């Protein structure tokens, strides 16, 4: 089997008295969509922040290909090809949509004109082509989520970390975003996504990791994971699996 593009090994992170991530290991295979799911407070975003360099783990390692990237700062990781979005959209509010995306495009392009041209292309890919000159602060939630993806995409990543890009969207907006994410994967970009919208996870992800209380409790194809007793209990409470899943 080929080396996975991302490998997280036994990562642990404590905030004071809270053990946010106790022992998490996962991999993302190149060219695939991998999902990380789990109940609120499971430590998903903390794990994302560790992978993207915003936090350092107390123990464990993160590998990008064969390189140990544990503890590298975010801008270095972005240059290596790891881009992330934020769960709560973080637009450059005073800038236009075009200028926002151009910041990402500048990573590999010095010239302003080249960055703006690349930004316009990326905006087209995510469906923001008609809103280039709008101030980023005027976007709807769905627009702001698309902008998050566009900026990250403009850096030219090989690994894209999507932190709940579908959260807060209505069903029609989710339905519109799903093909966009699939399209990004179709361009050969590896995606690791945190997602709560299960219908989207089921249709997009090829591999799912379930994080519960800082620990990966299940992994596998979306269907396997959805039927897993530990996963059902994590979401619905102790004993729920016995009531829901009839004994065979």
């Amino acid at each position, binding site marked *: 089997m080929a080396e996975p593009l991302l490998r997280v090994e036994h990562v642990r992170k404590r905030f004071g008295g809270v053990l946010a991530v106790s022992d998490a290991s996962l991999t993302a295979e190149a060219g695939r969509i991998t999902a990380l799911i789990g109940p609120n407070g499971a430590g998903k975003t903390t794990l994302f922040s560790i992978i993207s360099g915003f936090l350092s783990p107390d123990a464990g390692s993160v590998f990008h290909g064969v390189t140990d990237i544990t503890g590298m700062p975010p801008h270095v990781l972005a240059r290596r090809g790891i881009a992330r979005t934020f769960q709560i959209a973080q*637009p450059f509010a005073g800038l236009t949509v075009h200028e926002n995306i151009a910041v990402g495009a500048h990573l590999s392009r010095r010239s302003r004109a080249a960055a703006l041209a690349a930004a316009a292309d990326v905006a087209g890919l995510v469906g923001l082509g008609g809103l280039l000159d709008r101030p980023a602060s005027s976007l709807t939630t769905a627009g702001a989520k698309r902008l998050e993806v566009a900026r*990250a995409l403009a850096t030219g990543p090989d690994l894209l970390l999507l932190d709940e890009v579908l959260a807060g969207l209505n069903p029609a907006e989710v339905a519109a975003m799903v093909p966009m994410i699939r399209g990004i994967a179709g361009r050969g970009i590896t995606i690791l996504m945190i997602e709560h919208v299960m219908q989207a996870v089921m249709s997009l992800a090829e591999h799912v990791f379930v994080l519960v209380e800082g620990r990966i409790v299940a992994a596998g194809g979306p269907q396997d994971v959805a039927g897993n007793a530990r996963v059902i209990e994590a979401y619905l409470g102790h004993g729920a699996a016995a009531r829901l899943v009839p004994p065979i």
Partner: protein
Amino acid sequence: MKGWSIAHILIVIALLAIVPLLTASNVVLNFLTVALLIALVGQGWNVLGGYGGQYSFGHAAFFGTGAYVTAILQTRYGINAWLGFALGIAGGAMVGAVIGALTFRSGLKGSYFALVTLAFAEVLRIAASVAPVTGAGVGLLLALDLRPQAFQFQSRAPFYWIALALVAVSLIVVRLIEHSRFGAWLVAVRENEEAAKALGVDAVRVKLAAITVSAAMTAAGGAFYAQYFLFIDSGIAYGPWISIEALLAPIIGGVGTVFGPLLGALVVKTLGELAKLVTGDAPGLDLVIYGSVLILVVAFAPRGIIGVLSDLRMRWTRLRASVAGRAHG
């Protein structure tokens, strides 16, 4: 406001360059030279504060270093004034880089950054008021030598043109930054540092570059001041007055815009002069006026005069469009 080109800058500079040909009045030229000096110092602040979002309260540290370096080199070592001027700028830039390294590497932001820059300027002021090399409490007097090669002139006009040339350079530099990758990264750091980092921006390095350029411009103002007035002491060079002027001009004119500091400096200085005409020379009155203007601008026009003008222009365009629409309909 967007869309200012180098051509616009050159037109404004050319218009201002005509002034000494129209009037030989020392009062007018002195007033405009000081306004241009404040515009230059304010443009320095604007690079870091306006574009980078790092509000410094201590730009006196750079102004004073520019002034002292050239004054000390001339009075103690007999170095040529023009060379001293260049070294003054370099010295100011170095102080900027050092203060930037100490503050940005330790992650100081917002009001903490503002307070620490103020503290640096005050420490330098107190040091300059006791150290023998800076003339301690007496200050430094530059010897009168009215020759162009000594950076001194018989009339005010050459000083005015030099100040104008420095302002022109600062305007062009800022305009080039605005349309560069460095500028895009700097503004990204101002708008959202975390998001900028995620997009590959080395925020500390970008801020360090910004404070160095910012300090160099402001130091140029300080070195020019020493040459123009031929006297500095610790209160002039490192005093809080220049830190206030440096941030007031861009805030009133329009932070993060090319022409904001120049416009703000002209408006603030004009208001100061008008107030003096009305009230005589009541001490401290100009500060009262500065304070009042600052409160009004922050309350009602947070984007400064340039912001108000661009809003008015947008409204005017819309009004014309709707009137035209009605006439046709």
